[in-house]
């Protein structure tokens, strides 16, 4: 009984009468909406209605929802008649023609209403409509200018929407039902229904800038069809064809009529399906996206946002240039961000998403991203097309994201790969012995690690995508954030953490205090052995993870005040878009870029090759004629340098603005052939941290941590470190360039694989790694420091003794460390004394220790240095031409014989 009553109530009238009731509501609400709407600043005026005018917002909702109902019930009305075959009741061809044309008017009225919101989708819709109309032969231009106007103004669309379209629709309705007044009861029910919807659901409005463009829901199918064809004219022909067929339906014979109607019905169903699919799964740049991605990036169709009829906010003065977003109703006083991210101008939604037009806190914060910049949301926040898309794309291949090099070496020592040059991604780690080793000890240092809460990252909270380097909380910002998150925020000033490119050294420290420990070395600190007492050290400090540091000697660049980012540009740090295998491949800057001898490789600001550099130069108001250094490796500009007319290079610190003149390399560096193979680092690196005798075992029952997932584990790989030193680096050869480079113990360790999985055995590796010590000194190492130093040549620590017997000399070596039974080399050696090394003995396929022939040549000069001072004239001559100098030697000189 109740069901029947409800059914009867719901079928209170026909679709046609519901449509005409909706049209009347739409027209009246449209007249009211025209008062606050300003077509010269359409989007701003609609935004202001939504934000500051609750009654206007309700009227707008009434207008929108009544229009939607009018459209839907008009289509249902047509279907109703078609299904009952009552279309033949209309005898007059004129009446049917007007009804057919009414479909066109209806379509125009709906799309013009969509255009008049003037958001990104509305603006593009007008351009598409204009372009499609223009493509119609002969009448095209006239129709386009009559219906969409000329240029970017919405004036013509506005006039046609409120006047021509509305009048024509009412004429059609009157011609069809001989009245424009629906039945009172029906109208009342329809009005109450629309009012209820309008009070609860907001009419959509997008942003003026958006890379996700979707037309009105009923045109999404056409948008998809346009995507599928390179010839939009086909879509116009299809629409005209359907209208023509519709016009001729009453004149077909019964059989053809039935067939045609079935075809139209199938077409309609097909159209609905593609509309639904495109509506749900098409996203940015009309690419396929998941529902969740579209939920965050796109404009929602049904937005639950009850109109706040009792709003008490009195916003009388709205700053002219302030972004119209509801966030600023509460957060307009937000300070702390730089001009590039000024929230007053760019709003909050560009980074934090949420709902820019909802005025209630919970509604406005829906789908909000609390911590933008994590890689899971970077494409929607920092990396949108209008912001930093280029960087967020290329950073995905950066070694700081993939950890490829670390993984490749680790898997190599575990015997899980045979090549040191395979590429990996930390997110793809499994649970093999090497993968678990990485998860327990290394996988915390990558940018993909999510930052989940506000505030400065703690020592072990590494990663966070863009935030890892660019987000910084001052004390005031931290206090402000705590106030905002408490229930008693009050009216205190809000301070946002800074987001900028002033990346301080401490940002690098958390990760780069591990492995090669370059962040520690650069500032002069060396990690001490476990158990070292602070009292025993002259100058020391403790890291947050309780490692004790001892001061050795800082890099000369650090002493001068330079920071990591003064040398390492965004292409070094965030990648250049290429998949590099190891860090030395990815790093672009070299000593010679600034310490150049001869012609400086430079470029003028006006000719900068990449968008990012152009943007930074523009923000810094750099002189277009000024020249900056271009790196010799990949031709990337160093924007904090300048090259004057005398080809002198100056560098300005990015953090403190201090200026330095960068001197060319000393003449001794390029003198003669003797040192032509030496890299700058091989002479100027003061020390590198060196660790030997490391042992790794998997301890079942020892709780650990999976750094990739952030979860504790019941068992874990454990590392037992041996002795550590801060001494001059070992020298070796880059076999790809034939250059002498610096190296340090990389993977000198034993691994108990048996402890992880039975039958795997134990292994020992003596792999040295290339190093850039970051302990550069102006004064280079002395001649003896290389030629007479067993550590530098690769033999390890010990006594290198030159003995003369008669007319022949010979070298002997007494190691300090015992021989390792695995390879019979001293624990700290890279290669045997006057022995060819067994390969592999490095973590790179192109790095090797000195061959026997090279060792002999080094020691030959070393034997001269046992008598002659390194700065003597004869050694200077030897540097120019060793063979000639030896040929002139006196009888007292005893050369080494092997």
């Amino acid at each position: 009984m109740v069901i029947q009553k409800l059914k009867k109530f719901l079928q209170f009238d026909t679709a046609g009468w519901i449509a005409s009731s909706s049209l009347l509501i739409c027209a009246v609400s449209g007249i009211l909406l025209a008062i606050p709407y300003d077509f010269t600043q359409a989007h701003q005026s609609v935004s202001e209605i939504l934000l500051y005018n609750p009654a206007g917002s309700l009227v707008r909702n009434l207008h929108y929802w009544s229009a939607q109902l009018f459209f839907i019930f008009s289509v249902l009305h047509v279907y109703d008649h078609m299904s009952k075959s009552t279309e033949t009741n209309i005898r007059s061809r004129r009446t049917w023609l007007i009804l057919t044309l009414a479909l066109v008017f209806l379509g125009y009225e709906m799309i013009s209403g969509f255009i008049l919101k003037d958001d990104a989708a509305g603006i593009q819709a007008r351009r598409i409509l204009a372009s499609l109309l223009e493509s119609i032969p002969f009448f095209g231009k006239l129709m386009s200018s009559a219906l969409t106007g000329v240029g970017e103004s919405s004036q013509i669309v506005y006039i046609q929407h409120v006047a021509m379209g509305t009048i024509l629709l009412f004429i059609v309705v009157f011609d069809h039902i001989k009245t424009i007044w629906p039945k009172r009861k029906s109208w009342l029910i329809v009005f109450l229904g629309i009012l209820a919807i309008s009070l609860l659901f907001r009419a959509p409005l997008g942003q003026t800038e958006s890379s996700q463009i979707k037309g009105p829901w009923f045109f999404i199918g056409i948008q998809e069809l346009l995507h599928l064809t390179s010839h939009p004219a086909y879509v116009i022909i299809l629409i005209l064809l359907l209208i023509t067929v519709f016009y001729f339906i009453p004149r077909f014979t019964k059989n053809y009529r039935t067939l045609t109607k079935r075809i139209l019905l199938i077409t309609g169903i097909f159209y609905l399906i593609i509309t639904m699919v495109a509506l749900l799964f098409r996203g940015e740049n009309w690419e396929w996206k998941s529902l969740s991605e579209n939920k965050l990036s796109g404009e929602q169709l049904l937005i639950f946002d009850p109109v706040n009829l009792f709003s008490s906010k009195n916003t009388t003065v709205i700053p002219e240039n302030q972004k119209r977003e509801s966030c600023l109703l509460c957060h307009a006083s937000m300070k702390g961000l730089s001009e590039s991210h000024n929230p007053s101008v760019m709003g909050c939604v560009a980074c934090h998403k949420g709902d820019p037009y909802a005025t209630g806190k919970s509604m406005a914060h829906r789908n909000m991203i609390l911590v933008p910049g994590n890689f899971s949301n970077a494409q929607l926040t920092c990396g949108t097309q209008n912001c930093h898309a280029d960087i967020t794309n290329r950073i995905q291949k950066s070694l700081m994201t993939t950890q490829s090099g670390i993984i490749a070496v680790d898997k190599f020592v575990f015997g899980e790969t045979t090549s040191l040059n395979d590429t990996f991604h930390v997110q793809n780690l499994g649970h093999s012995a090497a993968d678990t080793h990485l998860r327990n000890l290394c996988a915390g240092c990558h940018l993909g690690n999510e930052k989940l809460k506000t505030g400065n990252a703690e020592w072990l909270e590494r990663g966070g995508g863009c935030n890892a380097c660019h987000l910084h909380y001052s004390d005031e910002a931290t206090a402000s954030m705590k106030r905002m998150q408490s229930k008693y925020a009050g009216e205190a000033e809000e301070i946002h953490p800074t987001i900028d490119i002033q990346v301080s050294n401490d940002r690098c420290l958390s990760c780069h205090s591990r492995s090669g420990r370059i962040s520690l070395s650069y500032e002069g600190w060396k990690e001490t052995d476990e158990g070292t007492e602070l009292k025993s050290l002259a100058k020391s400090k403790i890291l947050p993870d309780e490692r004790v540091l001892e001061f050795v000697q800082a890099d000369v660049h650090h002493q001068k005040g330079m920071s990591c980012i003064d040398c390492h540009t965004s292409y070094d740090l965030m990648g250049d878009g290429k998949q590099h295998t190891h860090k030395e491949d990815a790093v672009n800057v070299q000593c010679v870029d600034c310490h150049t001898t001869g012609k400086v490789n430079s470029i003028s600001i006006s000719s900068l090759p990449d968008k990012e550099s152009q943007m930074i130069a523009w923000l810094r108001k750099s002189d277009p004629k000024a020249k900056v250094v271009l790196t010799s490796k990949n031709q990337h500009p160093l924007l904090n340098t300048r090259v004057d007319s005398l080809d002198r290079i100056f560098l300005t610190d990015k953090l403190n603005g201090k200026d330095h003149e960068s001197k060319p390399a000393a003449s001794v560096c390029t003198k003669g052939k003797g040192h032509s193979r030496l890299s700058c680092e091989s002479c100027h690196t003061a020390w590198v941290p060196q660790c030997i005798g490391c042992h790794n075992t998997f301890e079942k029952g020892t709780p650990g941590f999976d750094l990739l997932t952030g979860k504790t584990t019941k068992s874990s790989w454990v590392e037992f470190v041996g002795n550590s030193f801060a001494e001059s680096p070992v020298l070796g050869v880059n076999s790809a360039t034939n250059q002498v480079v610096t190296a340090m113990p990389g993977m000198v360790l034993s691994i108990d694989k048996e402890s992880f999985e039975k039958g795997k055995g134990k292994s020992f590796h003596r792999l040295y790694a290339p190093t850039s010590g970051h302990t550069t000194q102006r004064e280079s190492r002395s001649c003896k420091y290389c030629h007479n130093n067993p550590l530098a040549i690769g033999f390890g620590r010990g006594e290198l003794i030159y003995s003369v017997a008669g007319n022949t000399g010979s070298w002997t070596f007494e190691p300090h460390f015992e021989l390792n039974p695995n390879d019979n080399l001293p624990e700290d050696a890279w290669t045997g004394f006057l022995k060819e090394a067994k390969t592999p003995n490095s973590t790179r396929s192109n790095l090797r220790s000195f061959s026997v022939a090279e060792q002999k040549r080094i020691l030959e000069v070393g034997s001269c240095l046992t008598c002659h001072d390194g700065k003597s004239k004869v050694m200077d001559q030897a540097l120019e031409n060793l063979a000639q100098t030896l040929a002139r030697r006196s009888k007292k000189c005893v050369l080494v014989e092997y």
Partner: protein
Amino acid sequence: MEYRHGQGLPMGLSYYEKYYLFRSDQSVRAFLTKCTHAGCRIGLGTATTLQCNCHGSQFDAETGKPIKGPAIKPLQEIECSFDSKTKQWVVTMQVKLLETT
């Protein structure tokens, strides 16, 4: 209507809403930012491409040629000449006629 750009015009792509410029070592070319498929305004893609967000077409910035459909026609090139007196690049919104041999 004409627009002028000084010698500080950066290398590569510079986007100006209605048109964009592409400066290479040899020349500066100007193209309309109207998609040749259905008339949408195209925006920046990567450093060397432009992107239509309505239907997904992509264009090579240097030549204006489509690199991803549905567009099949190249972007409309417009007149861009160097004024040696003012040392400025002058862009007129006039369609550049094809050079014939």
